[in-house]
């Protein structure tokens, strides 16, 4: 897995660094003045994007730990906040935006978590800006760090002792062992991205199988955690409807709809710069050859009626088994909402409000 550890000299004496080194005893270590050395090492590799998944750089976050999710005006955003604990991922999904987002991408973990908790304290106590949902799964997978840095062991109890904000841990792994026995007070939602086995097999290298994800979800449910699921990216392919329908059925036979805080639907979208990367790194992948058009935010999206059609079906399958579950679209416009779900978020107070209310119902946050 990790083949080399780089340590920013500014944090070399930080206790987290020692803990990581202990968990990776046989890995060569370089202490470096900054990320430039990592960039140089990657530049010499044949596939720097893959190589970046095996190089871990321990450093400090110089910017804010809490960031607003980068939504756009043209599509309805859910008003999520990102808890920026680190970047990149050890798994390798063909469609992963992170391949094109960082130049070059590599595993980077911010050890100066004292400041992270200070930022959280400020926000929780001041209640400004008012937000109620935060997650670590935007620039990385939330649970890949567990074997080395165990972030959940400090984050989950932290969120448990307040009632303002829920933490969402979003993953494609089944590494939930560290969550066992933690005081969570229902303020941590454990969430999985789901796709049918055919997509996992072909497009999501190194991720947990669909069954393993659902087993892990059931396990978390048994430990009392609220759950969430993201059918994102939904990918159109021959036979996809049958597969997605089956996946929805499997979801609800694995966990109870009552414990699901929300389910999101998002069709595959990508920055144009990702296309050549997918073509090169995943030559067998067909996902970029769908009927994509440039969206209003510059990302390529399935032509609208195709998205609406799949959303409608997904919504119907989900509604049939879980009529009350909070279902929403990630980055879609009002027309899609109206045509696929029959209403627009503004009719119900707006999407952020709808999600906050669901978090209040399931997790007891005070909004």
């Amino acid at each position, binding site marked *: 897995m990790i083949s080399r550890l780089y340590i920013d000299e500014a944090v070399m004496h930080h206790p987290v660094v020692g803990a990581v080194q202990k968990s990776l005893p046989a890995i060569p270590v370089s202490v470096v003045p900054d990320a430039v050395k990592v960039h140089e090492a990657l530049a010499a590799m044949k596939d720097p994007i893959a190589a970046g998944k095996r190089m871990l750089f321990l450093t400090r976050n110089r910017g804010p730990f809490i960031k607003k999710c980068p939504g756009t005006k043209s599509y309805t955003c859910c008003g999520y906040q990102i808890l920026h604990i680190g970047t990149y991922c050890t798994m390798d999904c063909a469609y992963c935006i992170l391949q094109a987002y960082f130049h070059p991408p590599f595993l980077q973990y911010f050890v100066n978590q004292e400041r992270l908790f200070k930022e959280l304290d400020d926000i929780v106590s001041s209640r400004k800006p008012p937000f109620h949902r935060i997650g670590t799964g935007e620039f990385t997978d939330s649970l890949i760090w567990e074997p080395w840095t165990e972030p959940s062991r400090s984050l989950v109890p932290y969120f448990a002792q307040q009632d303002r904000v829920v933490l969402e841990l979003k993953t494609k792994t089944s590494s939930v062992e560290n969550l066992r026995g933690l005081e969570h007070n229902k303020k941590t939602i454990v969430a999985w991205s789901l796709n049918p086995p055919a997509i996992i097999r072909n497009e999501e290298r190194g991720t947990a199988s669909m069954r393993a994800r659902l087993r892990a979800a059931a396990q978390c449910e048994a430990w009392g955690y609220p759950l969430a699921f993201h059918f994102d990216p939904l990918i159109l392919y021959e036979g996809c409807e049958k597969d997605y329908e089956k996946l929805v059925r499997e979801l609800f036979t694995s966990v109870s709809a009552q414990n699901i805080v929300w389910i999101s639907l998002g069709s595959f979208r990508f920055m144009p710069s990702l296309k050549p990367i997918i073509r090169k790194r995943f030559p067998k992948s067909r996902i970029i*050859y769908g*009927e994509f*058009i*440039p969206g209003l935010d510059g990302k390529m999206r399935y032509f*609208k009626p195709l998205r609406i059609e799949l959303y409608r079906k997904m919504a119907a399958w989900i509604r049939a088994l879980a009529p009350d579950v909070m279902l929403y679209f990630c980055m879609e416009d009002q027309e899609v909402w109206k045509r696929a779900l029959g209403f627009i978020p503004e009719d119900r107070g707006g999407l952020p409000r709808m999600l906050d209310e669901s978090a209040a119902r399931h997790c007891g946050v005070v909004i």
Partner: protein
Amino acid sequence: MVVVSRTIKYADKVVPIAEIDTKDDTCLLGLRTDPDALLVSIRTLGLINPPLLRQRRDLKYQIVCGFRRIMACNALGLREIKVRVLKESFTELDALKLAILDNRSHRKLSVVEQAQGIQKLSAHLPRQNRLEMLSSLLGFPENQKVFKKIKALSLLPVVIQAGVEDEIVSFEAAVDLNGFSHEDSLSFFELFRVLKLSQNKQREVITLVQEIALREYLKPGEVLQSEGIRTILGRPELNKNEKGSKARAYLKRRRFPTLTKTEERFSKELKALKLNEHIKITAPPYFEGGPHKLRMTFKSLKDFNERRKTLDAMAKNPALKRLLEPFDDK
């Protein structure tokens, strides 16, 4: 600019053409040695400028400069010609450089000649500074991107390289063809021979075919051989231009079936609105969202009132509602 660092010494000689290895193209840059244009001049004036040769170890002569002149003399039935033979032991690389500089002394090399030059010189040049040396010798900008493109051209079948010179396929489109098997790239080339397409359209066709092939698990050549394309190419009443647009429309429909259907539905409803050339409605790009655009032109109040009437009629026409909801199948 590369300089050949010594004065070139040569001996004037008369040699039998049979002793010249005309098949040795080591120093040939272009693809053609077609002598036609020189025949008349040599027949009337003789060979004014003697070709430059290098004697090989097997004592046969290798042509350094003057391929076409020698071919012309051969075609005219001459047995012996006046030549200049390099005196010192020139290496193959030196001879090649000399040939390039000789060509460049009176004109710019074509991109195909540059491609040939890259192919022939690369083996002799050290990796370090290779780009710098090649660009200086062959006269292209010292830039990795440009270099990669010209190199890509050099890897294509010769007939396609010649097609770039003959403007059957554009340079950029030819570069795109480099990613395909020779068989598939030749299929594209055959198509471009019979269609009239601008550079951008050639590139669009390449992308469409490639993506259709990947999506439908076919070879690009199979897409190009499909019934739809063959029917278009087989229609004698169409000229090259018309065939080009029909072929593109066919490929676009196959690659983007739902989008094409929606565009057609939109055009149909637009027609049903019976607007005139003074009023135009445009759909939002790709029907993704955002407003439709209405453009109206008028010169006078009278014009304006007429347009207003047209707009009133348009508002009452049920086609307008259908036009605004292009995703509804009914």
